[in-house]
Protein backbone atom coordinates (compact mmCIF):
# COMPACT_ATOMS: atom_id res chain seq x y z
CA UNK A 1 0.00 0.00 0.00
CA UNK A 2 1.27 3.44 -0.89
CA UNK A 3 1.89 5.82 2.01
CA UNK A 4 0.85 8.80 -0.05
CA UNK A 5 -2.33 9.16 -2.04
CA UNK A 6 -2.34 8.55 -5.79
CA UNK A 7 -4.74 9.65 -8.51
CA UNK A 8 -6.80 6.49 -7.93
CA UNK A 9 -6.55 5.71 -4.20
CA UNK A 10 -6.10 7.38 -0.86
CA UNK A 11 -2.67 6.59 0.64
CA UNK A 12 -2.04 4.55 3.79
CA UNK A 13 -1.77 7.57 6.09
CA UNK A 14 -5.07 9.04 4.95
CA UNK A 15 -6.88 5.71 5.15
CA UNK A 16 -5.50 4.91 8.60
CA UNK A 17 -6.47 8.35 9.91
CA UNK A 18 -9.91 8.14 8.30
CA UNK A 19 -10.90 4.78 9.73
CA UNK A 20 -9.17 5.14 13.11
CA UNK A 21 -10.99 8.42 13.63
CA UNK A 22 -14.28 6.98 12.37
CA UNK A 23 -14.01 4.16 14.92
CA UNK A 24 -13.09 6.54 17.74
CA UNK A 25 -15.88 8.95 16.85
CA UNK A 26 -18.43 6.12 16.96
CA UNK A 27 -17.12 5.12 20.38
CA UNK A 28 -17.09 8.71 21.61
CA UNK A 29 -20.67 9.39 20.55
CA UNK A 30 -21.88 6.19 22.23
CA UNK A 31 -19.82 6.81 25.37
CA UNK A 32 -20.84 10.46 25.56
CA UNK A 33 -24.49 9.53 25.22
CA UNK A 34 -24.24 6.78 27.84
CA UNK A 35 -22.11 8.45 30.49
CA UNK A 36 -24.08 11.65 31.04
CA UNK A 37 -27.05 9.87 32.62
CA UNK A 38 -24.98 7.76 35.02
CA UNK A 39 -25.38 8.47 38.73
CA UNK A 40 -22.57 10.52 40.21
CA UNK A 41 -19.68 8.37 41.34
CA UNK A 42 -16.30 6.93 40.51
CA UNK A 43 -17.40 4.85 37.47
CA UNK A 44 -18.91 7.98 35.91
CA UNK A 45 -15.77 9.99 36.61
CA UNK A 46 -13.62 7.27 35.03
CA UNK A 47 -15.79 7.15 31.90
CA UNK A 48 -15.65 10.94 31.61
CA UNK A 49 -11.86 10.75 31.94
CA UNK A 50 -11.81 8.17 29.14
CA UNK A 51 -14.10 10.31 26.95
CA UNK A 52 -11.84 13.33 27.48
CA UNK A 53 -8.70 11.30 26.71
CA UNK A 54 -10.14 10.00 23.43
CA UNK A 55 -11.48 13.47 22.61
CA UNK A 56 -8.01 14.98 23.00
CA UNK A 57 -6.62 12.14 20.87
CA UNK A 58 -9.17 12.94 18.17
CA UNK A 59 -8.23 16.61 18.31
CA UNK A 60 -4.55 15.77 17.85
CA UNK A 61 -5.40 13.41 14.98
CA UNK A 62 -7.53 16.12 13.38
CA UNK A 63 -4.50 18.43 13.34
CA UNK A 64 -2.34 15.70 11.78
CA UNK A 65 -5.02 14.87 9.27
CA UNK A 66 -5.56 18.44 8.17
CA UNK A 67 -1.80 18.99 7.73
CA UNK A 68 -1.49 15.73 5.77
CA UNK A 69 -4.48 16.61 3.64
CA UNK A 70 -3.03 20.01 2.80
CA UNK A 71 0.37 18.48 2.02
CA UNK A 72 -0.75 16.01 -0.63
CA UNK A 73 -3.09 15.76 -3.60
CA UNK A 74 -6.30 13.83 -3.09
CA UNK A 75 -7.41 11.22 -5.64
CA UNK A 76 -9.42 12.59 -8.53
CA UNK A 77 -13.21 12.56 -8.13
CA UNK A 78 -14.99 10.18 -10.46
CA UNK A 79 -17.18 11.86 -13.08
CA UNK A 80 -20.27 13.36 -11.42
CA UNK A 81 -22.66 16.28 -11.83
CA UNK A 82 -21.31 19.62 -10.59
CA UNK A 83 -23.88 19.85 -7.75
CA UNK A 84 -22.67 16.53 -6.37
CA UNK A 85 -19.04 17.66 -6.50
CA UNK A 86 -20.02 20.84 -4.67
CA UNK A 87 -21.99 18.79 -2.13
CA UNK A 88 -18.99 16.53 -1.54
CA UNK A 89 -16.70 19.53 -1.04
CA UNK A 90 -19.18 21.10 1.37
CA UNK A 91 -19.60 17.98 3.52
CA UNK A 92 -15.83 17.45 3.65
CA UNK A 93 -15.20 21.02 4.80
CA UNK A 94 -18.01 20.67 7.34
CA UNK A 95 -16.54 17.40 8.64
CA UNK A 96 -13.10 18.94 9.07
CA UNK A 97 -14.62 21.93 10.90
CA UNK A 98 -16.55 19.60 13.22
CA UNK A 99 -13.46 17.47 13.88
CA UNK A 100 -12.01 20.58 15.51
CA UNK A 101 -15.14 22.24 16.89
CA UNK A 102 -16.45 19.24 18.83
CA UNK A 103 -13.34 18.41 20.88
CA UNK A 104 -12.55 22.10 21.39
CA UNK A 105 -16.08 22.82 22.66
CA UNK A 106 -15.73 19.80 24.94
CA UNK A 107 -12.46 21.20 26.27
CA UNK A 108 -14.16 24.56 26.82
CA UNK A 109 -17.11 22.84 28.53
CA UNK A 110 -14.72 20.99 30.83
CA UNK A 111 -12.77 24.14 31.65
CA UNK A 112 -15.85 26.25 32.35
CA UNK A 113 -17.17 23.45 34.59
CA UNK A 114 -13.96 23.66 36.62
CA UNK A 115 -12.90 20.07 35.97
CA UNK A 116 -9.34 18.86 35.53
CA UNK A 117 -8.23 17.67 32.10
CA UNK A 118 -5.90 14.72 31.90
CA UNK A 119 -4.85 12.61 28.93
CA UNK A 120 -4.95 8.93 29.95
CA UNK A 121 -3.67 9.73 33.47
CA UNK A 122 -0.37 10.80 31.89
CA UNK A 123 -0.42 14.49 31.04
CA UNK A 124 -2.52 17.35 32.33
CA UNK A 125 -3.71 20.05 29.97
CA UNK A 126 -4.48 23.63 30.91
CA UNK A 127 -7.99 25.00 31.25
CA UNK A 128 -9.12 27.26 28.38
CA UNK A 129 -11.02 29.43 30.87
CA UNK A 130 -11.74 29.64 34.56
CA UNK A 131 -14.89 28.19 36.07
CA UNK A 132 -17.83 30.01 34.51
CA UNK A 133 -21.39 28.63 34.83
CA UNK A 134 -22.83 30.75 31.99
CA UNK A 135 -20.05 29.83 29.56
CA UNK A 136 -20.36 26.22 30.68
CA UNK A 137 -23.96 26.11 29.43
CA UNK A 138 -22.99 27.70 26.10
CA UNK A 139 -20.09 25.26 25.63
CA UNK A 140 -22.34 22.31 26.52
CA UNK A 141 -24.84 23.36 23.85
CA UNK A 142 -22.04 23.79 21.30
CA UNK A 143 -20.60 20.37 22.14
CA UNK A 144 -23.92 18.51 21.99
CA UNK A 145 -25.20 20.55 19.06
CA UNK A 146 -21.95 19.89 17.23
CA UNK A 147 -22.45 16.15 17.62
CA UNK A 148 -26.00 16.39 16.27
CA UNK A 149 -24.77 18.28 13.20
CA UNK A 150 -21.92 15.76 12.85
CA UNK A 151 -24.35 12.84 12.81
CA UNK A 152 -26.39 14.50 10.06
CA UNK A 153 -23.33 15.31 7.94
CA UNK A 154 -21.91 11.81 8.53
CA UNK A 155 -25.19 10.28 7.37
CA UNK A 156 -24.92 12.26 4.12
CA UNK A 157 -21.24 11.33 3.79
CA UNK A 158 -21.91 7.60 4.28
CA UNK A 159 -25.01 7.63 2.06
CA UNK A 160 -23.02 9.28 -0.73
CA UNK A 161 -20.19 6.76 -0.36
CA UNK A 162 -22.64 3.86 -0.59
CA UNK A 163 -24.39 5.43 -3.57
CA UNK A 164 -21.06 5.71 -5.40
CA UNK A 165 -20.20 2.11 -4.62
CA UNK A 166 -23.48 0.34 -5.25
CA UNK A 167 -25.38 2.59 -7.66
CA UNK A 168 -22.71 4.45 -9.61
CA UNK A 169 -20.33 1.50 -9.21
CA UNK A 170 -17.28 3.80 -9.15
CA UNK A 171 -14.12 3.52 -7.03
CA UNK A 172 -14.96 6.27 -4.47
CA UNK A 173 -15.54 3.97 -1.47
CA UNK A 174 -12.84 1.51 -2.54
CA UNK A 175 -10.29 4.35 -2.78
CA UNK A 176 -10.60 4.90 0.98
CA UNK A 177 -11.34 1.38 2.18
CA UNK A 178 -8.56 -1.18 2.65
CA UNK A 179 -9.40 -4.56 1.09
CA UNK A 180 -12.27 -3.23 -0.95
CA UNK A 181 -12.07 -3.43 -4.73
CA UNK A 182 -13.84 -1.05 -7.03
CA UNK A 183 -17.02 -2.73 -8.29
CA UNK A 184 -17.01 -4.11 -11.82
CA UNK A 185 -18.98 -1.90 -14.19
CA UNK A 186 -22.50 -3.15 -14.88
CA UNK A 187 -22.59 -5.38 -17.91
CA UNK A 188 -25.32 -4.33 -20.31
CA UNK A 189 -27.58 -7.37 -20.80
Amino acid at each position, binding site marked *: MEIRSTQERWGGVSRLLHWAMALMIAGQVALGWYMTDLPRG*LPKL*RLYALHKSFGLTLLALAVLRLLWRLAEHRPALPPMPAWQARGAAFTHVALYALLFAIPLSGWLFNSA*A*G*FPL*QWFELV*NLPALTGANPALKEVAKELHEGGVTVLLVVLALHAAAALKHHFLDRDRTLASMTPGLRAPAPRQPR
Partner: protein
Amino acid sequence: MKASSGRVPAIAARASRFAAVPAAALALALVGATARAAAPLWNVVPAQSSVSFVGTQQGEKFTGAFGAFAARIQFGPADLASSRLESTLQMRSVTTQSAERDDTLATSQWFDSAQFAAATFQTVALRAGVAGVAGAANFTADADLTIKGRTKRIVFPFSWQARPDGAVLDARVTLDRLDFGIGAGEWADESIVGRKVEVIVHLLLAPAAGR
Protein backbone atom coordinates in the same frame (compact mmCIF):
# COMPACT_ATOMS: atom_id res chain seq x y z
CA MET B 1 -15.11 35.48 79.02
CA LYS B 2 -17.40 34.37 81.81
CA ALA B 3 -14.56 32.78 83.77
CA SER B 4 -12.39 35.88 84.15
CA SER B 5 -15.14 38.47 84.53
CA GLY B 6 -16.60 36.29 87.26
CA ARG B 7 -13.29 35.98 89.02
CA VAL B 8 -12.47 39.70 89.29
CA PRO B 9 -15.49 40.69 91.44
CA ALA B 10 -14.81 37.66 93.65
CA ILE B 11 -11.29 38.86 94.35
CA ALA B 12 -12.50 42.42 94.85
CA ALA B 13 -15.12 41.23 97.31
CA ARG B 14 -12.53 39.24 99.23
CA ALA B 15 -10.17 42.23 99.27
CA SER B 16 -12.85 44.54 100.63
CA ARG B 17 -13.05 42.39 103.75
CA PHE B 18 -9.45 43.33 104.49
CA ALA B 19 -9.93 47.09 104.72
CA ALA B 20 -6.41 47.50 105.99
CA VAL B 21 -4.91 46.54 102.63
CA PRO B 22 -3.56 49.73 101.00
CA ALA B 23 -5.40 50.89 97.89
CA ALA B 24 -2.23 50.67 95.77
CA ALA B 25 -1.75 47.02 96.66
CA LEU B 26 -5.39 46.29 95.87
CA ALA B 27 -5.03 47.88 92.44
CA LEU B 28 -1.90 45.84 91.78
CA ALA B 29 -3.64 42.65 92.85
CA LEU B 30 -6.55 43.40 90.49
CA VAL B 31 -4.24 44.01 87.53
CA GLY B 32 -2.34 40.84 88.35
CA ALA B 33 -5.52 38.84 88.67
CA THR B 34 -6.78 40.07 85.32
CA ALA B 35 -3.52 39.27 83.53
CA ARG B 36 -3.32 35.81 85.04
CA ALA B 37 -6.99 35.06 84.51
CA ALA B 38 -6.86 34.44 80.76
CA ALA B 39 -5.32 35.32 77.45
CA PRO B 40 -7.28 37.94 75.50
CA LEU B 41 -10.27 37.09 73.39
CA TRP B 42 -10.40 37.91 69.69
CA ASN B 43 -13.16 38.23 67.15
CA VAL B 44 -12.74 36.91 63.62
CA VAL B 45 -13.21 39.52 60.88
CA PRO B 46 -15.09 37.23 58.45
CA ALA B 47 -14.60 39.28 55.30
CA GLN B 48 -10.82 39.03 55.61
CA SER B 49 -10.55 35.55 57.01
CA SER B 50 -10.66 32.22 55.22
CA VAL B 51 -10.47 28.50 55.73
CA SER B 52 -9.44 26.98 52.42
CA PHE B 53 -7.74 23.86 51.15
CA VAL B 54 -5.81 22.48 48.22
CA GLY B 55 -6.62 19.01 46.96
CA THR B 56 -5.61 17.01 43.92
CA GLN B 57 -8.01 15.56 41.36
CA GLN B 58 -6.81 13.71 38.28
CA GLY B 59 -3.33 15.13 38.55
CA GLU B 60 -4.49 18.69 38.97
CA LYS B 61 -4.58 20.84 42.08
CA PHE B 62 -7.84 22.50 42.97
CA THR B 63 -8.72 24.88 45.75
CA GLY B 64 -11.76 24.85 47.95
CA ALA B 65 -13.04 27.05 50.74
CA PHE B 66 -15.54 26.89 53.54
CA GLY B 67 -17.78 29.93 53.44
CA ALA B 68 -19.31 29.36 56.88
CA PHE B 69 -17.12 28.94 59.91
CA ALA B 70 -16.96 30.37 63.39
CA ALA B 71 -14.01 30.58 65.73
CA ARG B 72 -13.49 31.32 69.38
CA ILE B 73 -9.95 32.56 69.72
CA GLN B 74 -8.47 33.17 73.13
CA PHE B 75 -4.80 33.81 72.65
CA GLY B 76 -1.92 35.68 74.20
CA PRO B 77 1.60 34.98 72.92
CA ALA B 78 2.89 35.27 76.47
CA ASP B 79 0.02 33.37 78.04
CA LEU B 80 -0.12 30.07 76.21
CA ALA B 81 -1.38 28.16 79.22
CA SER B 82 -4.73 29.90 79.08
CA SER B 83 -4.81 30.26 75.29
CA ARG B 84 -7.23 28.18 73.33
CA LEU B 85 -8.34 28.06 69.72
CA GLU B 86 -11.69 26.59 68.77
CA SER B 87 -13.50 26.54 65.49
CA THR B 88 -16.60 25.08 63.89
CA LEU B 89 -16.89 24.63 60.11
CA GLN B 90 -20.12 24.07 58.22
CA MET B 91 -19.34 21.26 55.80
CA ARG B 92 -22.17 22.18 53.41
CA SER B 93 -20.57 25.60 52.84
CA VAL B 94 -17.73 24.09 50.82
CA THR B 95 -17.10 25.50 47.33
CA THR B 96 -14.47 24.22 44.88
CA GLN B 97 -15.22 26.12 41.62
CA SER B 98 -17.20 23.15 40.38
CA ALA B 99 -20.87 22.63 41.18
CA GLU B 100 -20.58 18.90 40.39
CA ARG B 101 -17.62 18.49 42.73
CA ASP B 102 -19.36 20.45 45.49
CA ASP B 103 -22.42 18.22 45.21
CA THR B 104 -20.25 15.11 45.25
CA LEU B 105 -18.44 16.34 48.37
CA ALA B 106 -21.75 16.51 50.22
CA THR B 107 -22.54 12.83 49.57
CA SER B 108 -22.12 10.06 52.11
CA GLN B 109 -18.85 8.79 50.63
CA TRP B 110 -17.28 12.22 51.13
CA PHE B 111 -18.30 14.73 53.82
CA ASP B 112 -21.76 13.23 54.40
CA SER B 113 -22.89 16.76 55.21
CA ALA B 114 -26.45 15.70 55.94
CA GLN B 115 -25.29 13.39 58.72
CA PHE B 116 -22.26 15.37 59.90
CA ALA B 117 -23.07 19.02 59.34
CA ALA B 118 -20.09 20.49 61.16
CA ALA B 119 -16.41 19.85 61.70
CA THR B 120 -14.87 21.00 64.95
CA PHE B 121 -11.37 21.97 65.94
CA GLN B 122 -10.08 22.64 69.43
CA THR B 123 -6.60 22.95 70.79
CA VAL B 124 -5.60 20.92 73.81
CA ALA B 125 -2.09 22.36 74.29
CA LEU B 126 -0.05 25.19 72.85
CA ARG B 127 3.67 25.80 72.81
CA ALA B 128 6.14 28.09 71.09
CA GLY B 129 7.07 26.72 67.70
CA VAL B 130 10.15 27.09 65.57
CA ALA B 131 9.73 26.87 61.82
CA GLY B 132 7.15 29.12 60.26
CA VAL B 133 6.45 32.54 58.90
CA ALA B 134 9.29 35.07 59.01
CA GLY B 135 8.50 38.22 60.93
CA ALA B 136 5.82 36.56 62.99
CA ALA B 137 5.76 34.67 66.24
CA ASN B 138 5.37 30.96 65.65
CA PHE B 139 3.53 28.45 67.74
CA THR B 140 2.45 24.86 67.62
CA ALA B 141 -0.77 23.47 68.95
CA ASP B 142 -1.91 19.95 69.60
CA ALA B 143 -5.52 19.95 68.58
CA ASP B 144 -8.46 17.64 68.24
CA LEU B 145 -9.96 17.81 64.78
CA THR B 146 -13.32 16.14 64.27
CA ILE B 147 -14.61 15.64 60.73
CA LYS B 148 -17.40 13.28 59.77
CA GLY B 149 -17.66 12.16 63.39
CA ARG B 150 -14.04 11.03 63.58
CA THR B 151 -11.62 12.76 65.89
CA LYS B 152 -7.91 12.86 65.30
CA ARG B 153 -5.24 14.59 67.37
CA ILE B 154 -3.25 16.73 64.96
CA VAL B 155 -0.19 18.96 65.19
CA PHE B 156 -1.20 22.44 64.14
CA PRO B 157 1.66 24.91 63.54
CA PHE B 158 0.60 28.53 63.20
CA SER B 159 2.01 32.01 63.13
CA TRP B 160 0.74 34.98 65.08
CA GLN B 161 1.36 38.48 63.86
CA ALA B 162 0.38 41.41 66.02
CA ARG B 163 -0.97 44.41 64.16
CA PRO B 164 -1.90 47.88 65.35
CA ASP B 165 -5.59 46.99 65.02
CA GLY B 166 -5.47 43.34 65.97
CA ALA B 167 -3.64 40.22 64.89
CA VAL B 168 -3.30 37.78 62.02
CA LEU B 169 -3.22 34.03 62.51
CA ASP B 170 -1.94 31.89 59.62
CA ALA B 171 -1.69 28.12 59.52
CA ARG B 172 -1.05 25.40 56.99
CA VAL B 173 -1.56 21.79 57.87
CA THR B 174 -1.61 18.74 55.64
CA LEU B 175 -4.25 16.14 56.39
CA ASP B 176 -4.83 12.64 55.10
CA ARG B 177 -8.50 12.56 54.03
CA LEU B 178 -8.71 8.83 54.80
CA ASP B 179 -8.02 9.53 58.49
CA PHE B 180 -11.53 10.96 58.53
CA GLY B 181 -13.17 8.50 56.18
CA ILE B 182 -13.47 11.17 53.49
CA GLY B 183 -13.63 9.61 50.04
CA ALA B 184 -13.56 6.08 51.37
CA GLY B 185 -14.39 2.85 49.55
CA GLU B 186 -13.94 3.05 45.80
CA TRP B 187 -12.53 6.59 46.12
CA ALA B 188 -9.68 5.51 48.41
CA ASP B 189 -7.68 4.79 45.26
CA GLU B 190 -5.43 7.81 44.87
CA SER B 191 -5.29 7.83 41.09
CA ILE B 192 -8.38 10.03 40.86
CA VAL B 193 -8.35 12.04 44.07
CA GLY B 194 -5.18 12.50 46.16
CA ARG B 195 -5.17 11.57 49.84
CA LYS B 196 -3.21 14.56 51.06
CA VAL B 197 -5.13 17.79 51.47
CA GLU B 198 -3.44 20.97 52.57
CA VAL B 199 -5.66 23.11 54.75
CA ILE B 200 -4.88 26.82 54.85
CA VAL B 201 -6.24 29.00 57.63
CA HIS B 202 -6.00 32.77 57.53
CA LEU B 203 -7.75 34.72 60.27
CA LEU B 204 -7.81 38.46 60.75
CA LEU B 205 -8.61 39.05 64.39
CA ALA B 206 -9.89 42.11 66.19
CA PRO B 207 -9.71 42.43 69.96
CA ALA B 208 -13.03 41.42 71.45
CA ALA B 209 -14.93 44.40 72.82
CA GLY B 210 -15.72 44.70 76.50
CA ARG B 211 -12.34 43.79 77.88
